[in-house]
């Protein structure tokens, strides 16, 4: 049951081979058995989920329900859920129970999905290892001494251990793709503006984008069909038509032009990673794809520009946590300034404070032009280089990460080393492009991912290319033995 695709589960529910209550209870039992070790959930919605499942079973006898009604989904704890704690991995929001749903949550509810729990994450999505969460580190189901990636590490660990069939993630610099890669999953960061950010707690608003995390491209396509679309409540949400992302999955990819950026395949690339990616390239060649070398000359500036722009936006966004309207307030403040300063210092963890300080510094008088404006100029150069390359090719291929999962604790006190683990994913967010990570095989028993980057709003091309790859390979069907 826990290895099945969304379609296969929906089929069983429709044929009444299993009830929604049985299905939810099945996954709740798996969570109870395994999540003490993994720590992938901040909140398990046992009571609400079973109630909703019961309602689905009752209604199914009376009327036709949406096709996926009754299927459990794990929601990243960054999406506001009405009546369910939404912590964003922070002590600051440990007591926050939103009075409304994020648009993404609303859309999954309308499609009949049942929120089985809220997944752990790096605090305010700032991290690549899920170690900065107030609720503790999440373990990688492939090896519990390793990180599951971040910031959507709870979502990736939960799917990898088959505690939920699918989950949502958000991606500001790689936070869907990197954990998907480190946990042997398929994760898609849509084009900036493709999915509404309403009710998705803000980190860096010009980079943040919600997206699907799943076992396969087919499941991710089904999820994106639900998630994508214009939302009047988010003025940055794109207003162009949403195609059926499942419609083109079966198209042959003969003639697909794939670009290989020479900067991403330099001598510094780990030889084991290179070997694995070479196999991916070979599989695509066998399917008739054409490879073309391309150049993204400014890619080495992407991390620098990102670590100015993202903290600058974060310092502004996180100024809303003031201990007045919601969230954490310190004990016995002696005056207003003391209340602001202590509430924020006690409520935020060290990585979040570090980024607020970097952002405030970059935006302060005397440094604004030298850091923030310059980074935004480089952002345009990076985006335009991608657009030029994507005039010649349909998609761009790269590893998702420089290595497989690292050890828990290995990079926690070396922020810059942590930042460098996002070297292949960050530029995509600066350019607002869609990109997908999919399983590329294993190195010493740990999964590795490859990334395909597409043109703005060309999610269908990415999903089609990965679906075809997954018909020729079986990496994505493998799961960790302990959770078989």
């Amino acid at each position, binding site marked *: 049951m826990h290895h099945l695709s969304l379609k296969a589960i929906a089929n069983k529910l429709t044929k009444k081979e299993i009830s929604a209550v049985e299905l939810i209870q099945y996954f709740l039992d798996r969570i109870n058995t395994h999540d003490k070790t993994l720590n992938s959930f901040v909140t398990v919605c046992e009571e609400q989920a079973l109630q909703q499942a019961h309602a689905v079973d009752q209604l199914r006898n009376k009327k036709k329900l949406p096709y996926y009604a009754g299927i459990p989904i794990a929601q990243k704890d960054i999406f506001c859920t009405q009546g369910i704690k939404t912590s964003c991995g922070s002590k600051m929001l440990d007591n*926050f*129970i939103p*009075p409304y749903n994020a648009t993404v949550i609303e859309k999954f509810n309308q499609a009949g999905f049942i929120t089985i729990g809220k997944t752990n994450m790096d605090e305010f999505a700032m991290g690549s290892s899920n170690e900065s969460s107030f609720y503790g580190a999440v373990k990688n189901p492939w090896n519990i001494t390793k990180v599951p990636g971040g910031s959507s590490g709870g979502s990736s660990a939960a799917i990898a251990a088959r505690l939920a069939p699918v989950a949502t993630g958000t991606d500001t610099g790689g936070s869907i793709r990197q954990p998907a890669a480190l946990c042997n999953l398929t994760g898609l960061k849509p084009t*900036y*503006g493709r999915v509404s950010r309403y009710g998705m707690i803000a980190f860096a608003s010009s980079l943040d984008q919600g997206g699907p995390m799943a076992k396969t491209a087919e499941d991710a396509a089904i999820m994106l069909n639900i998630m994508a679309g*214009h939302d*009047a409540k988010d*003025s*940055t*949400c*794109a*207003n162009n038509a949403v195609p059926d992302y499942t419609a083109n999955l079966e198209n042959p990819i003969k003639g697909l032009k794939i670009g290989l950026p020479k900067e991403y395949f330099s001598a510094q690339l780990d030889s084991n990673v290179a070997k694995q990616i070479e196999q991916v390239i070979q599989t695509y060649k066998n399917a008739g794809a054409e490879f073309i070398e391309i150049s993204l000359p*400014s890619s080495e*500036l992407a*991390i*620098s*520009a990102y*670590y*100015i722009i993202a903290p600058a936006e974060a*310092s502004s966004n996180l*100024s809303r946590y*003031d*201990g*007045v*309207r*919601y969230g*954490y*307030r310190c004990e016995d*403040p*002696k005056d*207003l300034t003391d209340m602001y*300063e*202590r509430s*924020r*210092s006690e409520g*935020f963890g060290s990585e979040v*404070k*570090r980024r*607020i*300080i*970097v952002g*405030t*510094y970059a935006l*302060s008088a005397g440094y604004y032009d030298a*850091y923030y*404006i*310059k*980074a*935004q*100029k*480089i*952002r*345009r*150069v990076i*985006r335009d280089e991608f657009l030029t390359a994507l005039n010649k090719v349909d998609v761009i291929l790269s590893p998702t990460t420089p290595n497989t999962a690292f050890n828990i604790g290995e990079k926690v006190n070396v*922020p810059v080393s942590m*930042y460098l683990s996002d070297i292949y994913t960050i530029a995509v967010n*600066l350019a*607002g*492009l869609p990109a997908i990570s999919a399983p590329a095989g294993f190195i010493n028993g740990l999964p590795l991912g490859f990334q395909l980057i597409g043109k703005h709003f060309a999610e269908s091309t990415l999903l089609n290319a990965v679906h075809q790859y997954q018909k020729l390979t079986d990496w994505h069907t493998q799961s960790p033995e302990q959770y078989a």
Partner: protein
Amino acid sequence: MTTVNQETIKKVAHLARLKINDEESKTTAAAITEVLNLVEKINTANVEDVHPLANPLDNNLTPRADAVSESNQREALLLLAPSSEAGLYLVPQVIE
């Protein structure tokens, strides 16, 4: 190479309304110095004539009509407040 001292960190932390003690300002100064040296690489780029990019899709904003769309949720919202009274947020005295 940029070096940020503890005094600057304390000043910036106050601007961001974060309280940090001497020990924290020392470790934070070291960490921020490291981050600033990472981002320093932007100075190798000649982008003088390039226009800054704030939104990767340029002008794709779709503002909604400026009309009331939400009902009054004062009570529900005040329930989230750490402290409130008579329909208002309570904070420490602002004016002495």
